[in-house]
């Protein structure tokens, strides 16, 4: 027991401090290479380094390898490979812009190690009603989960600090749920995701010093998806992610096709006092941000706070669901 507690503390420290220490170096390197993008919501339109994905990936790999040294399991290898492949997809998309179908298809391919390494169980567990075995459908589900979680986190990465802050809340809720459901091995393996997100949030929060980019958002989203599969907590994971799921759902039901977010009209506009407001453009998609702004113009910090409140609400529902998994009616 003592060994396990030491391991938990050690991997949490490795995850947090590797990102905390490496990110300032990454910021300077990106600035030197002129790899920056304009922050349109900021007064003066500051140029922000992007992508922060490399420091996120280093944090995840360093902590998962540390965990592997103590408890060598296939699950950890699966997390490392799938997350790394999703990072590669993201870094390609950061450098070159592809069509809307590139990311879902490439992320689906990055989910294949989960199948080849046999690190899954085809039971899908629901609260109160038990689980059901679906060998045929579950393989398809694996292929779908990683693109969904990756793109969902990517689509919510629209304001300073949202993707990393949201992922911090959702992943800690997932870890708590895994502990409640007594899936200790995966619960420990999921800890780095929360600590890496938290450390990155320090630089990503308003006013951002770095943006995660597709490589950062897809890495975080893909790791979240892998943990959901390996820990048999797909439903709990989906519930913790509900605000981001609503964002994607609203977007897809208004655009009615899979499209790269850079190719669509911005659903918001900036007022003269640098507040954000919903645009009156009929062709702009409906998103979570646009719904929040329907109440009136808000500062970026105020919107981020609303999104975090929604994330905390969903995280609470996810934890309640984890408790309900132990009850059968």
């Amino acid at each position, binding site marked *: 027991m003592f060994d396990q507690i030491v391991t938990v503390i050690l991997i949490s420290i490795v995850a947090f401090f590797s990102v905390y220490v490496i990110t300032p170096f990454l910021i300077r390197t990106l600035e030197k290479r002129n790899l920056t993008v304009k922050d349109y919501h900021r007064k003066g339109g500051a140029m922000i380094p992007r992508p922060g994905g490399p420091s996120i990936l280093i944090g995840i790999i360093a902590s998962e390898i540390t965990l592997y040294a103590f408890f060598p399991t296939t699950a950890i290898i699966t997390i490392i490979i799938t997350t790394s492949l999703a990072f590669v997809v993201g870094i390609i998309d950061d450098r070159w812009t592809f069509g809307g179908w590139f990311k879902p298809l490439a992320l689906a391919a990055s989910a294949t190690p989960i199948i080849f390494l046999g690190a899954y169980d085809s039971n899908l567990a*629901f*609260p*109160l*009603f*038990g*689980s*059901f*075995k*679906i*060998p*045929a*459908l579950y393989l*398809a589900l694996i292929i779908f989960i990683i693109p969904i979680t990756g793109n969902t986190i990517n689509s919510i990465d629209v304001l300073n600090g949202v993707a990393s802050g949201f992922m911090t809340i959702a992943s800690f809720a997932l870890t708590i749920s895994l502990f409640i459901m007594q899936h200790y091995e995966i619960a420990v393996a999921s800890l780095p995701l929360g600590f890496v997100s938290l450390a990155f949030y320090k630089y990503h929060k308003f006013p951002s010093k770095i943006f995660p980019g597709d490589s950062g958002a897809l890495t975080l989203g893909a790791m979240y998806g892998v943990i959901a599969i390996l820990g048999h907590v797909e*439903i709990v994971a*989906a*519930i913790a992610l*509900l*605000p981001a*799921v*609503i964002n994607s*759902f*609203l977007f897809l*039901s208004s655009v009615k096709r899979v499209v790269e977010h850079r190719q669509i009209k911005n659903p918001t506009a900036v007022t003269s006092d640098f507040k954000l407001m*919903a645009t009156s453009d009929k062709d702009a998609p*409906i998103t*979570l941000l646009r*719904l*929040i702004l*329907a*109440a*009136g113009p808000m500062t970026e910090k105020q919107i981020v706070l*609303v999104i975090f409140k*929604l994330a905390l*609400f*969903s995280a609470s*529902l996810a934890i309640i*669901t984890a408790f*309900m998994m132990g009850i059968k009616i």
Partner: protein
Amino acid sequence: MKNYTIFSFIFVMWILIIIGGGLLVAFTSMISIEGYVTVGPLELYYASIAKALIAIILVIIWVYVLTKIKNWMFHKKIKN
């Protein structure tokens, strides 16, 4: 609490997930295919495909219901 329609929508989605899960488990647990093929694993495979089809149909119904609820809850906000 200007945004509590969104909180309510999240809560409704949560309830729908729990009810949908219950229906899925209830419908699929009734399925077992026997007597048509002689090899055991193949029977399981066919049962799995049948379960998958039911699950997909239920998900489509779930998304349809959710879309209707979304339109009803966010009608005013979307119109603005």
